[in-house]
C-alpha cells in the first residue's frame, strides 16, 4: 500500500488509542464491529429461543396431549403464546438484528472503506434499545396471565381486550417490545443510510458500492418508509389496551380492520426488508466463488428498487378474505402478481452470474446456492396466494406457513449462515472447520425441506393454522395427515440436532481455528483489504477506490481478482 493513498485532509491516527476497560470494550463500545457482534450474538441467542418455541409446538402437533420433554403439557393458551412469539422473535429479534443490524454494522464501514459509522454513539444507543426490547419481550412470559397469544399480526379486538385474550399484561408488553425494536432499527437505519451516502472512500461512486451495502441501504429506507404507520398504530393499540380508547373497537366507532391495514402496510415491505440484505450477501458470495463479475449489476439494483417500491402497493393481499371490499382484492391481486417480474428477473440474473464461472463449492457458496434454490420454492408458491381466487382456499392454511418459511428460512437462516461462514475469517481472523460446516449444511438443508414439504401437502388438504390439537376437526385428524405432521416434527428434531455442530464450531474456531489472513477468499471488496480481524479504525491507511467490486477474472490481469483499492 503506497503512502500516496492517504489523503492529506484525512488524518490517520487510529492505530494508537488508549486501552479500554472490559466493560467499555464489550458493553459500552462505539466501535461498529463490536456493536455488530453484540447484535449477532443477541440475535443468535434469540434464534435459540425461537427454535425452542418451534420445538415445543411441533412436538405438540405431532404428539398432541403428551407432555413435551423440556416443557411439559401444552395448553391452548401456551400453544398460542408459543406460535405468536416464535413468529415475532424470528422476524423482529433474529432476522432483523442479524441480517440488517449485525451485518449492516459490520460490513457498511468496512465495505465502503471507512473507519466507523457516522453516528457511533447513536449506533450504541440503537443496540441498547434493542436489548431492552428483547428483555421486555422475555419478561412478558413471566407476568400474570402469561405471554401474548394473538399471533404475530396481533389483530384487535383479540389483542386489544383482556376479556378476549385472557392475558392482561402480555399484549401490552409485547407491543412495547415491538415498538422499541422499531425505534432501535429506525435509529440504526438512519445511521446506515447516512453512512453509506456520506462516508464512502474517495473514488467510490454509486455503482462501485458492493451489492450487500446497497441492499442493506435500500432495506433500511424501506423500513423507515413503511414502519411509521405501524408505530402510530402501536400507540393507538396500546391506548386501547391500557386506557380504554376505542380506536379498533367497533362498538365505539373504531375499526378493527384499520389495524390490519397499518400492520400489513409495514408487514409486506418487511419481507423485502429482510430479503434484500440476504440477496446482497448472496451476490457477494456467488461472485467470489464463481470468480465472476456480478451479472448485470445495474439490473440487480434497479429490480431491487423496483421490488421495494412495488411492495408498498401489495399489502392487502394479506387481507383478501378479511372483509375488505372484494373489488379492492382485484387491484391488489394485480400488483401482487406483477411483483413476480422484478423478483424473477433478480433470480435469473443471479443464476446467470454462474454462467461461464469457475465454481468452487466451499461452505459459504453452498449456503448461497441453497438460498437461491430454496428461495425459488418460496417465490413460486407465493403466486398461489397472490392470485385472489386461489387464496380463498389457501388463506390461513399450512400452505401459507410452508410458503413463507420457504422465503424466511432461506432469508434468515440460510442467508445468515452464508454471511457468517463467509465473513467469519474477517470477524475473528480464523477459519471455521470446513468439514463440520459441510455436515451442518447438508443436514440443515435436507431437514428443512423435510419440515416444510409435508406442510404444503397439509395445506392443500385444508389444514388450517394455529390449532393446538386437530382431534376436534375430523377432516384434519386423519392418520395420513397426522403422519405428515410427525414427519415434519421429526425433520425439525433432526434440524435442531445439527445446530450444536455449528455453535460449537463457531465458538471453537473463534479461538482455535486456522489463521485466515487478510483476504482468504481472494475477494475484491474493501473489507478484505484490511487486517483480519480489523483493528479499531479498521484500515491501516484508509483506502481509495479505483473500480467496481466485482472485477473478477479480468483478462488484463494475471490474478483472477482485482481489489477495489488497488491503483493498478
Amino acid at each position, binding site marked *: 500500500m503506497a503512502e500516496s493513498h492517504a489523503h492529506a485532509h*484525512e*488524518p*490517520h*491516527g*487510529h492505530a494508537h*488509542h488508549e486501552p479500554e476497560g472490559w466493560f467499555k470494550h464489550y458493553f459500552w463500545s*462505539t466501535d461498529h464491529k463490536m456493536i455488530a457482534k453484540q447484535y449477532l450474538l443477541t440475535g443468535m441467542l434469540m434464534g435459540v429461543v425461537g427454535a425452542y418455541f418451534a420445538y415445543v409446538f411441533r412436538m405438540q402437533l405431532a404428539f398432541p396431549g403428551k407432555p413435551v420433554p423440556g416443557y411439559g403439557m401444552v395448553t391452548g393458551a401456551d400453544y398460542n403464546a408459543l406460535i405468536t412469539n416464535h413468529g415475532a422473535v424470528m422476524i423482529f429479534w433474529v432476522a432483523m438484528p442479524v441480517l440488517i443490524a449485525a451485518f449492516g454494522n459490520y460490513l457498511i*464501514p468496512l465495505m465502503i472503506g*471507512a*473507519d*466507523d*459509522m*457516522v*453516528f*457511533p*454513539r447513536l449506533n450504541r444507543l440503537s443496540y441498547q434499545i434493542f436489548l431492552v426490547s428483547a428483555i421486555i419481550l422475555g419478561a412478558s412470559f413471566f407476568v400474570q396471565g402469561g405471554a401474548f397469544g394473538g399471533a404475530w399480526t396481533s389483530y384487535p379486538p383479540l389483542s386489544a381486550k383482556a376479556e378476549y385474550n385472557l392475558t392482561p399484561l402480555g399484549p401490552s408488553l409485547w407491543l412495547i417490545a415491538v415498538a422499541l425494536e422499531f425505534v432501535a432499527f*429506525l435509529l440504526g*437505519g*438512519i*445511521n446506515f*443510510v*447516512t*453512512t453509506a*451516502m*456520506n*462516508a*464512502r472512500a474517495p473514488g*467510490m461512486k454509486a455503482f462501485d458500492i458492493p451489492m450487500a451495502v446497497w441492499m442493506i441501504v435500500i432495506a433500511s429506507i424501506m423500513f*423507515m*418508509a*413503511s*414502519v*411509521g*404507520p*405501524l*408505530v*402510530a*398504530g402501536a*400507540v*393507538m393499540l396500546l*391506548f386501547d389496551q391500557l*386506557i*380504554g*380508547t*376505542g*380506536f379498533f373497537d367497533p362498538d*365505539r*366507532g*373504531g*375499526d378493527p380492520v*384499520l389495524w390490519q391495514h*397499518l400492520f400489513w*402496510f409495514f408487514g409486506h415491505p418487511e419481507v423485502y426488508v429482510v430479503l434484500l440484505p440476504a440477496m446482497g450477501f448472496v451476490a457477494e458470495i456467488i461472485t467470489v466463488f464463481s470468480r465472476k463479475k456480478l451479472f448485470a449489476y445495474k439490473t440487480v439494483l434497479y429490480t431491487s428498487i423496483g421490488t421495494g417500491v412495488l411492495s408498498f402497493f401489495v399489502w392487502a393481499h394479506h387481507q383478501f378474505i378479511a372483509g375488505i371490499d372484494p373489488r379492492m382484492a382485484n387491484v391488489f391481486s394485480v400488483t401482487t402478481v406483477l411483483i413476480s417480474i422484478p423478483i424473477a428477473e433478480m433470480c435469473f440474473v443471479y443464476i446467470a452470474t454462474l454462467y461461464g464461472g469457475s465454481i468452487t463449492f466451499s461452505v459459504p457458496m453452498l449456503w448461497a446456492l441453497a438460498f437461491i434454490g430454496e428461495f425459488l420454492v418460496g417465490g413460486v408458491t407465493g403466486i398461489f396466494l397472490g392470485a385472489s381466487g386461489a387464496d380463498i382456499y389457501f388463506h390461513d392454511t399450512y400452505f401459507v406457513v410452508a410458503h413463507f418459511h420457504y422465503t424466511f428460512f432461506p432469508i434468515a437462516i440460510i442467508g445468515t449462515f452464508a454471511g457468517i461462514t463467509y465473513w467469519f475469517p474477517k470477524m475473528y481472523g480464523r477459519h471455521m472447520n470446513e468439514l463440520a460446516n459441510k455436515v451442518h449444511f447438508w443436514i440443515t438443508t435436507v431437514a428443512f425441506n423435510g419440515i416444510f414439504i409435508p406442510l404444503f401437502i397439509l395445506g392443500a388438504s385444508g389444514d388450517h393454522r394455529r390449532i393446538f390439537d386437530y382431534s376436534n376437526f375430523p377432516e384434519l385428524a386423519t392418520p395420513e395427515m397426522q403422519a405428515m405432521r410427525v414427519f415434519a416434527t421429526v425433520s425439525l428434531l433432526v434440524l435442531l440436532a445439527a445446530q450444536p455442530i455449528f455453535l460449537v464450531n463457531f465458538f471453537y474456531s473463534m479461538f482455535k481455528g486456522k489463521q485466515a489472513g487478510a483476504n482468504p477468499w481472494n475477494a475484491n471488496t474493501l473489507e478484505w483489504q484490511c487486517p483480519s480481524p480489523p483493528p479499531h*479504525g479498521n484500515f491501516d491507511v*484508509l483506502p481509495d477506490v479505483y473500480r467496481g467490486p466485482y472485477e473478477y477474472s479480468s483478462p488484463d490481469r494475471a490474478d483472477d481478482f482485482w481489489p477495489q483499492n488497488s491503483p493498478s
Partner: protein
Amino acid sequence: MVKPIATTRSATGVPTGRLAVWWVIASEIVIFGGLLASYVMHRLGHPEWATYAAHTNPWAGGLNTLVLLTSSLTAVLAHNAAERGNGKRAANLLMLTCVGALTFLVVKSFEWYHEISEGFTITANGFWSFYYCAAGLHGIHVIAGAIIMLFVAADARKNKELQRVELIGIYWHFVDLVWIFLFPLLYIAK
C-alpha cells in the same frame, strides 16, 4: 472519544448531520401520515364527529399556530446568526424559540384542562381519542425539540457546534408543519 474520520466525510456534498435530520423527518412524516390518514378515514366514515369537533377551541388553536410560526421565524434568525458566526445571538434566538415552545405548551394545557373538565377525555369517543393522540404526539415532539434546543443553544453560546443550529431549525420547521396539518384537521373541519 476520538471522532472517526467517517464522521468528517461528505461524499454527497450534503453535511452528514443535515442528511440525518432529513431522514429523521422522513420517518416522522410516515408516522404522522399513518395517524392522520387513519383519522381522516374515520372522520369520513363518521359524519357525527363534526359535532364533537365543534367543542374544540379554534381561537386557542389559532393562537398556538401563530406562536409556532413566530418561533419558526426566530429559529430562522438563529440560523442566520450562526451562519455569520455569531453564536451568542444564535443562542439567544434559540432561547426565544424555546419560549415560543413553552407558550405553545401552556396554551395547550389550558385548552386540555378545559376540555377534560367538560368531560371530553381521551376515552370519550373516537374523535377525542384521535384529538389527544395526534396533538399529544405532536406535543411530545415540541417538548423534545425544545429540550434539544436548550443543549444546542448552550453549545452555540460558546461558539461550538454552530452547524447544529441549522439542524434543530430544520426539525423545528417540521414540528411547525405538522401543526399546520393538525390545526385544520382537528379544529376547523366541521
